[in-house]
């Protein structure tokens, strides 16, 4: 896998796609037609080669109205199905709008799945607004900014999360905006964890 980093995007060339990568590629190919989205959390580390699997891919989509959501629902349901409910109105009103994520898997499968939610906090909206473009072979993805992803993983604090944070920092340390990273460490009170496990 060849890797390059610019101010505009990150590029991965000749990446050998795993089954999970292919699942993400195909799903996002439909999602991006209808929705402004950003992939957050575990898959961000996996995308760049972290050696672990994941049952779900976490995504924020920009808050929208039911009619727009229904267009996405109809398109995505041609190949995938919502695990929570088969009713789009219920998915929108009782789940998404109530800050409960909805999950989509391939039909008659359960795992892996996309966990989709609306941004709830200012932090979530910032993540969507400042998303990073990643060009992978012949497709593109949007991921959360690494300067937030690393402290946020530390904030979550499980062994797996700390390992993800360390992997991302070691991979991107020559390219990361250190002052932004430290600002998020400050805000999330993860400075000590950063010094202990990441540096």
């Amino acid at each position, binding site marked *: 896998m060849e890797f390059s980093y610019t101010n505009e995007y990150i590029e991965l060339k000749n990446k050998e796609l795993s089954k999970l990568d292919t699942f993400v590629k195909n799903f996002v190919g439909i999602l991006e037609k209808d929705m402004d989205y950003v992939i957050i959390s575990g898959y961000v580390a996996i995308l760049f080669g972290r050696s672990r699997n994941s049952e779900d891919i976490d995504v924020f989509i920009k808050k929208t109205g039911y009619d727009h959501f229904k267009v996405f629902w109809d398109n995505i349901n041609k190949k995938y199905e919502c695990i929570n409910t088969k009713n789009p109105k219920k998915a929108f009103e009782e789940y998404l709008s109530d800050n*409960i994520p909805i999950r989509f898997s391939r039909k008659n499968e359960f*795992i892996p799945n996309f966990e989709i939610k609306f941004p709830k906090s200012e*932090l979530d909206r910032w993540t969507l607004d400042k998303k990073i473009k990643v060009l992978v072979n012949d497709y593109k993805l949007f991921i959360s900014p690494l300067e937030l992803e690393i402290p946020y993983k530390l904030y979550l604090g499980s062994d797996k999360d700390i390992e993800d944070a360390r992997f991302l920092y070691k991979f991107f340390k020559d390219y990361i905006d250190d002052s932004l990273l430290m600002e998020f460490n400050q805000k999330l009170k993860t400075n000590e964890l950063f010094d202990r496990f990441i540096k």
Partner: protein
Amino acid sequence: MRTPNIDLKELEKQKKENFKQRLEFIDNYVKWLKKKSNKKI
């Protein structure tokens, strides 16, 4: 770059809620697995 305000109390609440949803997901996955394997018998 202007960074967002972070309400740590709200974030902690969100973390607990996410964990609760994760546990519910596991329950539903087990139900689905059992249902699926029963069909094959």
